[in-house]
């Protein structure tokens, strides 16, 4: 580890940026704040890349651990709570993703955000800090603290800079996720106290907690598991708990929608991987075939809903839910291929969703509406915009050579090869594969309504500058990971290896 590489600094650098922006001396013009944020996020991303280089140069598997101490004290020592952060390969992959997506979000903020620049950018940095903390937290209470804290900037970002209904949607988002958080807190308390009653050591460090299902009475451990499942299921979302998502996504401003779809949903997925899978492997294996049902419902139900949406952003939001269903298939298959596909899907979907919301944001800036029918009836000619959107559209459909396909393919193969001794998960996977037909239905509906059949042939409204660059960057990345999936999967593979070893499955 090089001297300048500090995990704590990596996580809390956005907080520093946020404070710098809020400082009264800092200029309050749009350009100044945005340029600062953009370059800061670029530097932050590059800083995160140095961690990747560190991880790749080290062999055996590396786990960075670092603790935030004030005056060399633990945080709440008497209760065994300490601000410990650790980074393994999964965290690294998600941290890299977060820093990259925030860069895209900052670039896309240009001309989208029209008021209160200082507060907007500092809230975005605060949000970034919370999310990075979630991905790296080692301590249950720090995790929960950041999990809750993240809602505050998100609430204001949606309600203050969003569209007409934003206030109601933000409130719904806030209350709904709080509802989920209660269950997470319940789960955390359950294992925190029960582990104490077994070992006699008060600790909330994930490594030191005792979650061995043999030592617990079954109802307690199942209770904790289900609590976590519901809590993270709200964020992911798993289908009956999804109704906040479409409202929040559609009413948020474009950069915030990008962050919501690309990263915020992934915190739920991360929770499932880190808590439900890693802490309770036995129960996970027992319940996985039953939970596969929810995965199939996510896939089919959400994509059927996406087909009949009239609002571009709602359509993309439902497509996100359906894509998370594919993640769930990979996850509940609980085998090497499926888990690889699930994590691949997390990252690939994040980038594709960012691309889709970018396209939606540009469309909104051209037509000042998100209504698909209105756009189709007033279609302007934008050949270059259409051409650079094609890779993102194809990636969202899941065409091979784009990253979406690898993720889907691995998840479905994982679901099919899942070895539970019953055929039900296989049948559910087969049903879920039908989502590739549905995904082509809704994505092509979006694409064709917004680009095909031009009404006014003489009037051309095309894109240039930062928007063009963002679309090109995203297309190139999606294509690159689709052709060379190993570059992406090598980052998080040690996590899959250790998990699979721990589970003792194929």
């Amino acid at each position, binding site marked *: 580890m090089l001297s300048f590489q500090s995990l704590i600094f990596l996580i809390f650098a956005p907080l520093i940026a946020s404070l710098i922006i809020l400082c009264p001396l800092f200029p309050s013009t749009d350009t100044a704040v945005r340029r600062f944020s953009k370059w800061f996020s670029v530097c932050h991303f590059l800083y995160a890349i140095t961690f990747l280089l560190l991880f790749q140069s080290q062999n055996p598997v590396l786990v960075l651990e670092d603790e935030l101490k004030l005056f060399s004290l633990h945080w709440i020592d008497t209760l065994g709570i300490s601000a410990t952060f650790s980074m393994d390969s999964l965290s690294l992959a998600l941290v890299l993703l977060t820093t990259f997506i925030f860069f895209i979000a900052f670039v896309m903020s240009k001309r989208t955000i029209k008021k209160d620049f200082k507060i907007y950018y500092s809230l975005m940095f605060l949000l970034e800090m919370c999310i990075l903390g979630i991905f790296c937290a080692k301590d249950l209470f720090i995790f929960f603290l950041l999990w809750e804290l993240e809602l505050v900037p998100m609430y204001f970002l949606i309600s203050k800079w969003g569209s007409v209904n934003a206030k109601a949607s933000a409130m*719904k988002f806030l*209350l*709904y996720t709080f509802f989920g958080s209660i269950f997470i807190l319940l789960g955390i308390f359950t294992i925190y106290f029960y582990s104490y009653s077994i070992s006699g050591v008060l600790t909330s460090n994930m490594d030191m907690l005792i979650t061995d299902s043999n030592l617990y009475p079954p109802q307690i451990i199942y209770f904790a598991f289900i609590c976590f499942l519901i809590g993270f299921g709200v964020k992911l979302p798993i289908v*009956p708990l*999804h*109704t*906040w998502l479409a409202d929040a996504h559609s009413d948020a401003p474009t950069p915030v929608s990008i962050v919501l779809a690309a990263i915020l949903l992934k915190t739920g997925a991360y929770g499932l991987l880190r808590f439900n899978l890693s802490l309770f492997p036995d129960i996970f294996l027992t319940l996985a075939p039953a939970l596969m049902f929810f995965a199939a419902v996510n896939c089919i*139900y959400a994509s*059927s*809903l996406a*087909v*009949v*949406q009239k609002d571009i952003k709602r359509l993309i939001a439902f497509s996100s839910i359906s894509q998370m269903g594919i993640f769930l298939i990979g996850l509940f298959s609980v*085998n*090497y*291929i499926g888990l*690889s*596909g699930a994590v691949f899907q997390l990252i690939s979907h994040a980038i594709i969703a960012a691309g889709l919301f970018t396209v939606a944001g540009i469309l909104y800036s051209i037509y000042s509406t998100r209504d698909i029918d209105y756009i189709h009836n007033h279609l302007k*000619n934008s*050949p270059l915009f*259409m*051409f650079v959107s*094609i890779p993102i559209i*194809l990636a969202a459909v899941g*065409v*091979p*050579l784009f990253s979406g*396909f*690898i993720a889907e393919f*691995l998840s*479905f*193969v994982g679901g*099919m*090869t899942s*070895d539970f001794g019953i055929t039900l998960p*296989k049948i559910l*996977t*087969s049903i879920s*594969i*039908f989502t*590739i*037909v549905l995904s*082509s*239905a809704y994505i*092509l*509906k979006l694409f*064709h309504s917004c*680009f*095909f*059949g*031009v009404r006014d*042939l003489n009037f051309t409204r095309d894109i240039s500058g930062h928007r063009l660059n963002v679309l090109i960057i995203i297309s190139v990345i999606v294509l690159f990971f689709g052709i060379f*999936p*190993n570059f992406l*999967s090598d980052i998080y593979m040690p996590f899959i290896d250790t998990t699979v070893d721990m589970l003792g499955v*194929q």
Partner: protein
Amino acid sequence: MTELIEHNIFLVLFLPVWVCLFILVNHFVKFTDTKKLTYFFTLFSTTVGLIFSSFLLYSTLFPVQRTIENSLLWFQYGNLSVYFGVFIDNISAIFLFILMCVSLAVHIFSYDYMKDDEDFHKYFFYLNFFNFSMSALLVSSNLIQTYIFWELVGVASYLLIGFWYKRADVSLAAKKVFWINRIGDFTFLLALITLIYYSVSYLQSFPQGEILAFTNLDAITFNLQALMSETTFVSILLLLALSAFVKSAQFPFQTWLVDAMKAPTPVSALIHSATMVCAGLFLILRLYPMFMASEFILHLIFIVGLFTAIFCALFALPQRNIKKMLAYSTSSQLGLMFFALGALSPTAAIFYMCAHAFAKSSLFLTTGYVSKLYGDELNMNKLGGVRYNKFLLALYWFIASVSLSGMAFIGRNAKEAIYGSFFNPSSYLTLSLLVLVSFLTTVYLFRSYLKIFEFESNLSMKYMSSYSMTFGILGVVLLSLCGGAIINNELLKAITPQNFFFTEYHDLGLALILIAAALIGISVAFITVKIKPKRNIIPRFIVKFFYRGAYIDSIFKFIGSILFISVCKVLKFIDEYIFDGCVKLISFISVKLSHLVKKLQNGNFQTYIAYAVFSAGLILYLAFQIYSYIAKEL
């Protein structure tokens, strides 16, 4: 020379990709805007492809049948290792050769056809992308790679159908084509994933290394049969056959091919007549050892093929749009090839594929030229008299029609190869149906010939001549005229898969039957076009039924845009009023409750006192109850 080719297969395979990259970079950087440069690179890559594929054809077939194999590991997760490779045997070599021949002709043709289009570079970008995906599909070394490029050729076809994206009708057609093809992709993926499941889970019983490699298909088939139940095996084959039917526009999926005609005409010539639609045929041929294991599936292919051949020929008869007529004709001819596959004569299917590719692409390219002359007019009723100005075009159409209807040239040999095995008294029913197909083919081809090229028309014709278009057509017309010299008996014998044998079939009786059917067909066409019988012999509703393609399209439309959408709307209703309704109900109840509680805080002192007294009494009562309960317990 052979070694040079074998070592550089990947280089040639990726040549179109380099052209694509060049066009793409040029699009954004714009260091040169000459269309000629794009055209030159495209022609270069296709020509090199043609030279290589001809060498490959001969080096894989002569002196003995052999395969060229070369695979690289693409990615590996656990037991699942996916390879990207090249596996060229007799089947892929001949398909590759046909692809390259037609592709070169179409590329040459396209220059003048597209030169006034603002998206000239984009067109060649897509075309090169198609070339790459199609050749990679044909040389793929395992089923996973086949699936990947199977989807990519679909995407290329979709992009080219949607090429004139500004038109609303094109938008609808492209969307529909993609959706219907996606159903085929779905069945393919389902079958593929099930096959992968067996090969990954029972790894030890399969050949080591590449999963589902075509190299050891016999061993894989044997193992699969041993591992899975008969039903599973047959249903996997059924899924694969379904996706082949979709790709090759077999009944009832022929509707997408008609919609695909919204593409630029050279694209229809390349993708929707000669190459991509044969991918379904290729898939079945590729997995022939597997398909041979199930009688049922072979019978299904046989019946679907025959059915499509007859009905699509009937649908082609009343069409007015030349390209739609040609599209139905393509489906019908592909039906004959599937029929041959089902009848266990793969060589005849391949032979017919070659003959059809040459003839059909000549027809399409000629159509393209004619429509250019008349300002994109494709309605054959409005056209007429092209022969008097452009005699050569009429000649080209005539040659291609003669070949396709089985009167002479390569077409007759190919037809004889298919029909020959039924030329015996025991299968006279099948033979008569086949002869019917051939008769119908002649009728619609010569009917359109008479309408387009003979007689007079009101439309004024632009006088133009184009070298690139003429050369393009000439290439494929020459091939359909004397392609028999290239695809000769020796080659066909060498192509024949192992365990099969191909015998030259020359029977005067069969030839006479074919020619008689064709001549009757020509006379029928002449009568209907020239004499125009006053009274309709065939009732109007039947004509309309066939004109509309037996309303299959409407059925698809009903399923897609009414049935499916209503199910989705019901789900949306459930989502909004039940799932979200619960959430809203909870929030409603909590708001109402808080309003109720709010009333307690009315600022009235007497009320507060009353509450306090009431609460104190309640607490005292409860305390007393608890006390007495505890006292009783003690």
